[in-house]
C-alpha cells in the first residue's frame, strides 16, 4: 500500500504536464490520513478546453468594442436631447442603442469568464484608425454613422465566429459559434436593415420641399418605436 502511494505520487509528478484535473487530486487524497500539500499547478482544473485561447482574444475585443460603442451612442443621444436639436425620437433611438451595447458588453464579459478566460479592458484598435468622432451632426448623418458602427460590430461578430469555426485546423468551438449566432448576428442583421431603411426614408424626404417638417414627423415616428 505504501509503495502504491509513493508510486502514485511519483506518477502524478512525472505526468503532471498532460494530466487530467482528477489526477492532480488522486494521488493526494487517497491512501493517507495525513494532509498533503495541495498541487501547485492546477492549470488542468480551469474551465478552458479545446482551442479557446485565440477565440477568447477576439471575444474580449468584441466586448471592449461594445463598451466604446455604448458610450458613443450615449453622446449621440445626448446631442439630440438638447433644446436646440430637440429631437426626442433620435434621442431615444441612440439611447436604446447605447443601452443595448452596454448590456451586451456585460454579457460578453460574463461569457469570456464562462469559457475560462480573463477579461482585459483595453481600448479597441479602431480608436487609433477611426477619425475622431464628432457627434454633433445632422440627423441623416447620425443615422449613417450608426449604420456604419453597426456594420463594424457585425463584422467583428463574424470574425469571432470565423475563429471558432476553423474545423480543418482542429480549432472548432461550436459553443462560441452558436453563442455568437444566437445572441448577436440575427439581431445585428435586423438592426442594420432598420437603420438602412431610415437612411432611405430620410434621403427621399430631405430631397423634397418639406425637409424640416419631414424631420419633425420622422422624429415623432422614432419616438414611437
Amino acid at each position, binding site marked *: 500500500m505504501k509503495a502504491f502511494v509513493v508510486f502514485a505520487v511519483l506518477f502524478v509528478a512525472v505526468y503532471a504536464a498532460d494530466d487530467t484535473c482528477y489526477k492532480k487530486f488522486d494521488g493526494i487524497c487517497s491512501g493517507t490520513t495525513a494532509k498533503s500539500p495541495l498541487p501547485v499547478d*492546477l492549470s488542468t482544473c480551469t474551465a478552458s478546453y479545446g482551442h479557446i485561447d485565440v477565440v477568447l482574444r477576439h471575444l474580449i475585443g468584441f466586448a471592449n468594442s461594445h463598451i466604446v460603442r455604448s458610450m458613443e451612442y450615449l453622446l449621440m443621444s*445626448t446631442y439630440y*436631447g438638447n433644446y436646440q436639436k430637440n429631437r426626442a425620437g433620435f434621442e431615444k433611438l441612440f439611447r436604446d442603442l447605447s443601452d443595448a451595447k452596454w448590456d451586451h*458588453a456585460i454579457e460578453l*464579459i460574463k461569457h469570456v469568464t464562462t469559457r475560462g478566460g480573463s*477579461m482585459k*479592458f483595453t*481600448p479597441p484598435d479602431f480608436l487609433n484608425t477611426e477619425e475622431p468622432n464628432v457627434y454633433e451632426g445632422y440627423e441623416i448623418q447620425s443615422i449613417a454613422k450608426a449604420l456604419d458602427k453597426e456594420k463594424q460590430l457585425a463584422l467583428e461578430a463574424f470574425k469571432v465566429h470565423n475563429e471558432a469555426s476553423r474545423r480543418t485546423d482542429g480549432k472548432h468551438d461550436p459553443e462560441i459559434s452558436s453563442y455568437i449566432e444566437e445572441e448577436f448576428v440575427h439581431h445585428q442583421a435586423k438592426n442594420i436593415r432598420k437603420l438602412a431603411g431610415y437612411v432611405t426614408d430620410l434621403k427621399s424626404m*430631405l430631397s423634397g420641399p418639406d425637409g424640416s417638417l419631414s424631420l419633425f414627423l420622422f422624429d415623432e415616428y422614432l419616438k414611437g418605436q
Partner: protein
Amino acid sequence: MKAIVASTLLLCTFVLATGDLQCSHTEPLYLTNPRWDDMVDPCVNVMRKQIKTELNAAMQYLAMGAHFSKDVVNRPGFAKMFFESASEERQHAIKLISYLLMRGELVSDVSSLIDTRALFEKINWTKWESGLSALKNALTLEALVTKDIKNVIEVCEGHTNKKRQNQEEVNDYHLVDYLTGEFLEEQYKGQRDLAGKVSTLSKFMTDHGDLGEFLFDKKLLKGDL
C-alpha cells in the same frame, strides 16, 4: 466652423448623390433677458467632470464583476453585485446628462463629454485578493465619488467661484437641491449598505475564512443581503 458646416453639407450631398439634399434647417437662436438657460460655466464644467467620474466608477465596477466571474475565483454573487453597480453608475452619468439637458446645456461640445480611451486607462484595480478587499475597495470608491459630488455642490453654490475667479456669487439653488436631496441621498444609502457588508463579511472571515466568503457569496447571489 463655417468651413466645417460647409464641408459636411457638401459631404451630405456628395455621398447621396442628390443635388439638393437639405440636411440643415437652421433656426435663429432666441436669447431671453434675463437668460432662461442660466447655468454658469464653472458649475457646468464641474458637472461635466462629474459625468466622467461616474462613468469611470462604472468601468471600475465592470472590472470587479469580471474578476469575480472567473472560474478560478468563482464568486458569482460578488460578480452579480458589481455588474449591477456598474450599470447603476452608468445610470448616474445619464441622470446628470439629463439634468444638464433640462437646464438648456449641452448644446455644443458634446463630443468631449466622454473620452472613451480614458475610460479604459482609468481602471485602477483589476485584481483583488478576496471578496472582502473588493468590498472595501468599493466603499473607498464610493467615498471618493461622494467627495466629488460635494465639490460639485460647493462650486455650484457659487462660493468657490467667488473666491477663485472674482466672479459674482451665483447660487444654482435647484441643482444644489437636486444633488443634495437625490444624489447624495443615494450615495449615503449605498455607502451604508457597503459598510454593513464589509462589517458582516469581516466578522465571518476572522474565524471561517474561505467558508465565510463562500457563504456570503451565495447570499449575495440570492439577494439575501
